């Protein structure tokens, strides 16, 4: 695929002596939603952290629009994450002391956007996620599903080209999870955001265009994995 917006080749990453990634090759096209599935501990989060520049791999390369993410200094990777990449975790991403609007404004303020413009954009994104009425509330006053929608607004407010979502519904009940996924898919399609969706739930992988399966630190063709 030449239209890959993000690709990785031969990624290796160990924690001490235990390997978490053993040579992973992966790519995602602009606007594509890819699910990364596999049992707990197989290395999904480690892969996502390497792809998004949170972790530096021990070997292999990560290329985002012709830039070697793995070779960038931490400051440049952080800048990339603040502007062109978005990250959504399972929970606990919001700053407890800040209101929803302040939380969503944060990435824009860090990127140098003026206060007023940041607030306007934050309110727009809260509205797109159906939580405009929560703008002045703090995370502690919201349900898990509401918090996750605010976190999604925060991940998308910079209009990233790639969104990384690590078990985004893992802490939610089925209906709240479904709402988060419906918003995520709708907005990713509308803004042509590529999504790397890590999940161990088949029904959540059903929201993706394509699924890749990990086993023991490797991306496995499921047929090969089964036949091994």
């Amino acid at each position, binding site marked *: 695929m030449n239209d890959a917006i993000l690709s990785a080749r031969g990624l290796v990453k160990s924690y001490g002596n235990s390997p978490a990634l053993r040579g992973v090759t992966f790519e995602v096209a602009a606007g594509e939603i890819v699910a990364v599935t596999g*049992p707990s501990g197989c290395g999904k989060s480690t892969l996502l952290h390497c792809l998004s520049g949170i972790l530096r791999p021990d070997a292999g390369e990560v290329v985002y629009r012709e830039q070697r993410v793995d070779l960038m200094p931490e400051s440049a990777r952080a800048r990339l994450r603040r502007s062109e990449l978005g990250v959504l975790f399972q929970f606990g991403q919001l700053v407890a002391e800040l209101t929803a609007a302040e939380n969503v404004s944060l990435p824009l303020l860090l990127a140098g956007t003026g206060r007023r413009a940041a607030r306007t954009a934050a309110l727009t994104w809260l509205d797109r996620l159906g939580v405009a009425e929560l703008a002045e509330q703090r995370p502690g006053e919201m349900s898990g599903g509401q918090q996750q929608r605010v976190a999604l607004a925060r991940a998308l407010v910079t209009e990233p080209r790639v969104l990384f979502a690590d078990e985004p519904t893992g802490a939610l009940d089925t209906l709240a999870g479904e709402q988060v996924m*419906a918003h995520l*898919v*709708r907005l990713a399609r509308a803004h042509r955001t590529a999504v790397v969706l890590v999940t161990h*739930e*088949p*029904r959540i*992988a*059903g*929201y*993706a*265009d394509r*699924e890749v399966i990990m086993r023991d630190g490797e991306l496995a063709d*499921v*047929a090969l*994995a*089964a*036949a*091994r």
Partner: protein
Amino acid sequence: MSTSHVLLGLLAEGPKHGYELKRAHDAHMPRAKPLAFGQVYATLGRLQRDGLVAEGDRDREGGPERTSFALTAQGRERLDAWLSEVEAPAPFVASALLAKVVVALLAADGRRAGVYLAAQRAAHQQRLRELTAAKLDPESGLGDVIAADFAISHLDADLRWMDTTIARVADPNRGVRS
């Protein structure tokens, strides 16, 4: 699922001709197979014989498609009883999926079972993607969404079982026996 009970249910809102019943069935059961006319009339015939439905007005031209059918008091009782009855949890021995894996293990080996499971898994995941897309379609009504959910939940359960089984047949010593 029992077609005769579904037809009783559809007649609960008022008498219908055979053709209207077929249309109502297909509209309300969007994931079920469309009902053949022959099956509608055969089922109505049995229900009539058992006193659960009765013929209502017949248009002058006659013919079965001009006859409307209405629920009898007995039919309403039967419908009520069916709605109150808990279904036996689906007997898993009937699952073609399980049967195939068992036969693959008997007739061949874990590898053969794994290859089948991998292909089946891909088909299941594909269907799950289609149903998820159908559910996200803004045109979908509540009936479509809950029907898609029902199918999705079952596929999800099958997929979990397949993932566990793929791991188990790949390494039979893992899990319960280790």
